């Protein structure tokens, strides 16, 4: 289940626990953004929904590849990117 919720969205039960993901998955969908919501973002950048091998989805950025080389179903893996002293973000890179 993602995003985190106070109860299970499938059975409405309380017994939730954190499960570690493999960090590997495939690009489910993506968009190359040319007009950012804030000037802090350098364009173009790729926003994607990654479908993790465990079957859950998350929003992220794809890095380490040319925007025009990205394809749906492309295998990717998580890459923890240090943005500042306090912030590290789970982005994804193509595998292989």
């Amino acid at each position, binding site marked *: 289940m*993602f*995003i985190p919720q106070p109860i299970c969205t499938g059975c409405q039960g309380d017994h939730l626990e954190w499960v570690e993901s493999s960090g590997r998955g495939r690009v*489910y*969908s*993506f*968009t*190359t*953004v*040319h*007009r*950012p*919501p*804030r000037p802090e*973002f350098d364009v173009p*950048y790729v*926003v*994607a*929904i990654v479908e993790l091998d465990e079957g859950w*989805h*998350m*929003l*992220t*950025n794809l890095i380490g590849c040319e*925007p025009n080389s990205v394809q*749906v*179903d492309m295998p990717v893996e998580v890459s923890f990117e240090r943005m500042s002293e306090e*912030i590290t*973000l789970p982005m994804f890179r193509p595998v292989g």
Partner: protein
Amino acid sequence: MSRSPFHDVAIVGAYNTVQAKTADQPEMGLLLDSMRGAVASAGLSLGDVDGLNVTSSVQRYNSREAVALLGGNPSWTGVDIGIPAVIEAAFAISAGLADVVLIATAQASEYTDRVKTAPWTRPSNEFVECWGLYTAAEFALIARRHMHLYGTKPESLAEVASAIRSNGARNPAALHYGREVSPGDVLNSRMVADPFHLLDCAVTCEGGAGLVMTSIERARDLDVEPVYIHGGAIERQGMAYMTPPVWDRYGHSGRTAARKAFGQAGLTPADVDVAEFYDPFSFEIIRQLEAFEFCAEGEGGDFVMDGRIRIDGELPIVTNGGLMSFSHAGLAQLLQKPIAAVQQLRGELPEVLTVPGAKLALASNGGAGALFCDVLLVGTEQP
């Protein structure tokens, strides 16, 4: 099935204020214009109103405060916006809680010389903001998946944007009146969030709008053409701009609402003469055609071609120019979909945009990227 209580209710007034990039008066002035204009278009006065739903985007003026403006006369107040506000008012009227309901809303002073982007398109939370996500990108993620699954082409998206913008170009009340846009112009406009070019996206602006509803008995006594509510339903799927807009889960947003609305009406999509689809982005039209079952899954891209959705086509859509050309003003833009349907059916749009013999119109709010989609069916004939 038993008769829907919505069938005892009619829309008798529909009004838009001037829509502008930035409004030339404060929000309260625009709101009063919306209220007065809507009751006038129903042949009523504000003193006739006994149910009130007032919202404003910036000042957050609300129904309970607005009741005071009408001398405390309205005993019922609504809280919802857009199509849900119409459905809520229909319940109130059919239950006898109110006889004449005025829904009015306005947005002004939202934009400045420095800030032109709609605030609700820039959600701020840990699941989206850090990725540079905003509304256009969220809806693009839905569109991209459809293009991957079904081979939907940018040319189909461009045809949708061109058809809607061509309607707005011929509507003197539209923000983009006179701005004819070809499919080529859409494809040649700068990229915003692939596959959306600038002209695949809605405008931003300010304005107000109002709608008046009453019982069909009361409507008979008025000197206006009533537009009847045939069906309406709401569909909500959770927190938008936080949850990933996964096609498999949200791509059919609105199908349940559409089936309920058509079920109440005893009608099918084939009966619809005009579709005032919610049009924040071009692809959303293709998606709604499939979600509401005007065509089969994956066929929306072909459906929109060959002039079919243009004003003289088989299924004219967004006949006033919509969010892409007419207006995309705060909370008003949601109400402007039912207003467009009413004005189309009453022949109040310019003649060049009037669909001859149109009897049934669909209006919608929301879309897959927003994780909600509401549907309303209105018609000239009593259900």
